[in-house]
């Protein structure tokens, strides 16, 4: 196998500039939305005193979870020593940083007082998982940046495994922290469970890889570089394993709750009569984001390489849509179900006690969230233009030492 050559994108075509301009417009819209929300107050959003976290948090959590998962491709190459993943590692690190920045900017711009970010950086309550997360997120960027450097600087390559191991452990801790934001909420029946941490880790594997596959294929098809079936099929099958893991943890989460009579009402709400949340759970997360992509990646591979690559692209898109549905059900559905102040009693008040809270996402929230996605996209786009993240070719022969032997067999 020849050594892998990496190169920057030329990045001087019309579509390149058009894409960059579109992403920039989304970012500007997001800034305008954030300004409008901060200037008028959050009453212009769909968020209320009942649904205190809304669409921005759905976007932010999806991006942050996907960020840690996007790093897995690099980890599999350097930490677990799978040679075929090695050429994919650099892009994996870039995605991890870009998605995290995109998610965090949404979170910060949604704060009631984003101008006080400096307070969040200087005044800490170390009992708060949020405070830990500030260190975990910033630390993650530093660790991944170092990891990228040792991968890209030939003289430092010998440290790649150590840096990769550190980054891998860090990302597991980071996603544990993100899941525990919900897991630690003792009073909310939909959360309050240690399973939130491993569930979020499984979600990160799946969402992160789906995003990775789409960006990788878009970059290669967009820049007319070769990418072979070996890479896409391998990533597709790996995605299938991760989709199955998410479904497994989701099943355990609900089975465990269903067993306890006290959680019967909240489970009934999510699984049976929760309206939009029930629909998003079954149709969005389970069918669109789970079963269909599982079928797409595991059905017997089509002989036509274009067909199989199309299946994997479709599966990745569905995983992302299903992932948004899942995060929406967790974040919004979990808050919509009323807090149980008086177990066993019927409760009502002028402050929405005892009733399912309504929530309708508003334009500023969605605009802000999409801006985070656009920012991540722009960072990736500029990153691959200025630095050598992408191998010149991912054609089968270029990356798979066994390719010729395999293809020569009948």
């Amino acid at each position: 196998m020849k050594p892998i050559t990496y190169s920057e994108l030329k990045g001087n075509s019309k579509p390149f500039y058009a894409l960059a301009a579109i992403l920039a417009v989304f970012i500007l819209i997001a800034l305008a939305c954030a300004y409008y929300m901060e200037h008028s107050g959050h009453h212009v959003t769909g968020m209320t005193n009942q649904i205190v976290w809304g669409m921005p948090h759905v976007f932010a959590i999806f991006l942050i979870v996907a960020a840690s998962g996007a790093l897995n491709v690099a980890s599999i190459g350097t930490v677990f020593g799978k040679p075929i993943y090695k050429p994919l590692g650099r892009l994996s690190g870039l995605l991890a940083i870009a998605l995290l920045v995109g998610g965090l900017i949404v979170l910060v711009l949604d704060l009631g007082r984003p101008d006080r970010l400096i307070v969040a950086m200087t005044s800490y309550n170390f009992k708060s998982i949020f405070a830990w997360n500030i260190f975990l997120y910033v630390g993650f960027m530093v660790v991944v940046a170092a990891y990228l450097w040792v991968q890209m600087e030939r003289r430092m390559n010998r440290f790649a495994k150590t840096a990769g191991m550190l980054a891998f452990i860090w990302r597991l801790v980071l996603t544990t922290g993100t899941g525990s934001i919900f897991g630690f909420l003792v009073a909310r029946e939909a959360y309050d469970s240690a399973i939130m941490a491993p569930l979020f880790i499984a979600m990160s594997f799946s969402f992160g890889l789906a995003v990775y596959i789409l960006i990788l294929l878009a970059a290669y098809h967009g820049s007319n570089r070769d990418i072979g079936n070996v890479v896409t099929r391998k990533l597709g099958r790996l995605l299938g394993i991760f989709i199955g893991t998410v479904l497994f943890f989701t099943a355990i989460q609900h089975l465990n709750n269903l067993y306890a009579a006290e959680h019967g009402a909240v489970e009934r709400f999510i699984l049976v009569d929760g309206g939009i949340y029930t629909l998003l759970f079954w149709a969005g997360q389970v069918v669109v984001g789970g079963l269909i992509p599982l079928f797409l990646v595991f059905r017997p591979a089509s002989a036509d390489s274009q067909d199989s690559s199309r299946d994997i692209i479709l599966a990745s898109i569905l995983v992302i849509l299903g992932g948004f549905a899942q995060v929406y059900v967790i974040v919004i559905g979990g808050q919509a179900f009323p807090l149980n102040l008086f177990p066993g009693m019927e409760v009502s008040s002028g402050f929405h006690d005892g009733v399912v809270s309504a929530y309708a996402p508003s334009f500023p929230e969605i605009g802000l969230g999409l801006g985070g996605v656009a920012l991540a996209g722009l960072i990736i786009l500029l990153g691959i233009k200025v630095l050598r993240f992408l191998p010149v070719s991912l054609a089968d022969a270029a990356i798979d030492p066994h390719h010729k032997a395999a293809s020569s067999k009948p």
Partner: protein
Amino acid sequence: MSSKTKDKKMTGTPGFDPARRSFLAAMATVAGVTLAPGVVLYGISKSSPANAAATSDVRWGMLIDLGRCDNGCDDCVSACAKENGLRGFGRPDTDAQWIRKVDIKDPETGYSKSLPVMCQHCEKPPCVDVCPTGASFKRADGIVLVNKHTCIGCRYCMMACPYKARSFVHETLEDQKPHAPRGKGTVESCTLCVHRIDSDRQPACVEACSDSGGGAMLFGDLNDPDSEISKRVATYASQQIRADLGLNPGIRYRNL
């Protein structure tokens, strides 16, 4: 040893030096003159609660007797709004509410009751645990507050509070009361009328309840065994909302 015999012994001790004694006396006078004003001022400051630091010797709490709380009465709610300058914007989903009347009904028996619910001023408040900046804090005397200077408006405390006691300020406010600082983009909740407590007065809801003749709300120091509230909670059964969470709220209910 009596002081007399002590004196005797001292005068009888060889090497007794009258000059040393007068020197010590002079030093004592100087020290006394120097320290006395400070001691006096310290005493004055201690005697004035408005200037005194909150101390954990005290645990402020409330006992709400639902046997005396009228279903249709919301005097405590309106007194709170007036005292703290809470004005609605006609948007019930986002308007702030520090205290509310909750109607409960046992579906098995048909028993129903209405009770006021506000920040329960927990001994182990989840809102304080989760706050990333420490803006949500518990004073030494048990009052749970939000530091308006360091709250970044992340609303994690609202997610964590089991009592739905906190509100986020969703709009620009004007003409706030100086004793009840509030501001857009920060979280707030019942302060137990800390400004009143610090000047030896009762919370506004308690006063209003008493004025209306209900007298259902009793405020006092749960740490002082001689206080009326301590005597009552020691004599009669009282309950805490969601006692199973182990948060030990300072607000207790009777006849719940």
